[in-house]
């Protein structure tokens, strides 16, 4: 049995939703970053799936670019987490609200 495009999209949608819920509900910065990665990878899955269906390699190249940028973003994010730990700040996104209006 071959796996059709709807299956890929379904998995992707489930992953995206899991990621989104993680971003919205969790308060630990580490978990939020993890959830963000899940969202990004679900999009990557969609890109690759459509790319296979169309037959070109554009989508796959794009997915690689997304991975590269995601890696850079994680570096910044984890760097922030490490910096916050060193200053013994509370690792809770709801407590980090000095930029409120």
């Amino acid at each position, binding site marked *: 049995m071959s796996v059709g495009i709807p299956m890929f999209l379904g998995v992707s949608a489930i992953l995206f939703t899991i990621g*989104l819920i993680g*971003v*919205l*509900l969790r*308060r630990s910065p580490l978990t*939020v970053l993890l959830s963000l990665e899940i969202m990004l990878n679900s999009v990557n899955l969609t890109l690759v799936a459509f790319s296979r269906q169309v037959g070109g390699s554009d989508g796959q190249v794009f997915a690689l670019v997304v991975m590269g940028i995601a890696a850079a973003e994680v570096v910044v994010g984890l760097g922030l987490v490490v910096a916050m730990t060193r200053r013994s700040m509370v690792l809770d*996104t*709801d407590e*980090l*609200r*000095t*930029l*409120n*209006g």
Partner: protein
Amino acid sequence: MTELVWITLALPLLGVALLAIFGNKLPARGAGLLASLIMLAAFGAATVALILLASKPEDQRQVTETAWTWLSAGDFRVGFDIWFDQLTALMLMVVTGVGFLIHIFSIGYMKGDTQERRFFAYMNMFVFSMLVLVVSGNLVQLLIGWGLVGLSSYLLIGFWHHKTSAVKAAKKAFIMNAIGDVGLAIGIFLLFVDLGTVSYSGVFASADKLSETQASIACLLLLVGALAKSAQIPLHTWLPDAMEGPTPVSALIHAATMVTAGVYLIARMNPLFFYAPKVLDLIVIIGVVGLLMAGAIAIVQTDIKRIIAFSTMSQIAYMFVGVGLSAYWAGIFHLFTHAFFKALLFMGAGLVIHALNGEQDTRNMGGMRKLMPKTYFCFIIGGLALTGIFPFSGGFSKDAILGAALHVDSTIGWIAYVGGLLGALMTGIYTFRLIFLVFHRRMSPYAEKVAPPLIKHHGEGPSSMLWPVYILALGAAFLGLLQIPGVTHVMSSWLEPISPYGMVEATASQEWLTTLIGTLVGVIGIIVAAHLYLRENDAPERIRLGRGRLIAHALERRCYWDNLYEWMFERPVQWAASFLNRDVDATAFRWLPTDGVGTITAFFGRSVVVLQNGIVRSYALVFAVGIAGFLLFLLVRGT
């Protein structure tokens, strides 16, 4: 050969970069030396480039090269180009050569200033900007150079930024030049709309497709730019105020860079101006009015640098007359000689100011001849060249312009001729009034107190300040010999190819006649000045308070241009602002407790501030809901 032009262009930029990055590690003297060495190298490269260009056959003396393309869309492209021909080569020589001497002079002049490195970085940047403008092969790059020159002049005029007057003068120069920049930019847009190209070669090749109206409007807009940069009526008011900068800056602005740009632009764009003869006539008229007005104002000024500044305006007006009459070579020739004698006069003034510990008012000078014989001698040479007395350089170049006016033999030509000769009379009067006030007469009490100890201590100035003056004096004295009517014709034949439609050139007999009359008029001017100012007498003051008081008042207030602009722009804006503040805000919003507009804005601000709660999760929720809503909307619409 083109490599040398690139090197000439790159060197001052390198200087700026080095001074900006390593300036703090250099000793203060080192900055000036570095900047001067860079200018020397640039001058060397420009000289070799000129020699190489001259060694080519005449029909190959126009080289273009593109470094890279900035912008391309369809057929349209803008690149970083150089356009190296006879005119560019000559301008490179003037900018780098005179610029180099001014840099050397600055080493001595700026000694002891705490900001020497910043000064020399700006100076190199000024030269770089001018070079970008001059070597450009398209109008967009020209505009970039044009803007950079304006910026550099702003930075240098306001160099002593602790002085309010200097900051004001810098702002004035910048704003006036911005008006010109806008005119120039709109002119370039218009040329692009009409012709679809902004490169010189493209514009020149298709200029004949323009109707006379189109060409005239484009040329008028280019002229606005030229008027602002060259300080001509009606955008001239910044130049006399620009004296607030250090004296070498004035020399650089007046001699090597900046004010010559307008003349260069018109000469460069001459194939376009050819199709706008009315604009050329307008240029002549502006030039004649400007040279008479500036000359007359210069007669009554008391600040040594301001007198020279108005003389620059007057001399640039001569150049405008020259290019307006299609005697492009004569205009550029005058630009060339003017660079030497004007830099010489400014440096001479700088030496005097130096010896008087910063004093610029001629009423506090007098009798400096005995204390500063070398400066006096060089100043006399510069003065004679400026007045246009026969064997000195200014005489040949000014008479080349007036000879061309005689040759044209139209109404415009005669206006230019008579106006130019009248201007020569005034030149003689104001130049030698300046010399008599500064170097002759009895020494003022201030000078008597300040100057002798200073001069006893370090002579007329350090050799770094004297040598550039000597070299410029040589140039001011002898460079006119390049173009002796009927004998040598280096200038006219060298510059002849830059205009495809031919140039106006007077016959030898017309030029000799003009030289004779011009010298005579100049000498009359000197005699008048000697009569009024050589000895202390009350004649000038009697005229000022007596029969000539209305004219004197007008001239002392610089013909009311500043007052005119104050009434036209400053007052209406102030009036509108106070109307809005006092009447609109206070009456229309009277129902609010304090100042109305502020209260309303603050109210709305406070009502949306709750959204900015600082919790990242809530922002993410807004994103998610927003995107979900948008996708739902697309789903429902079914597309």
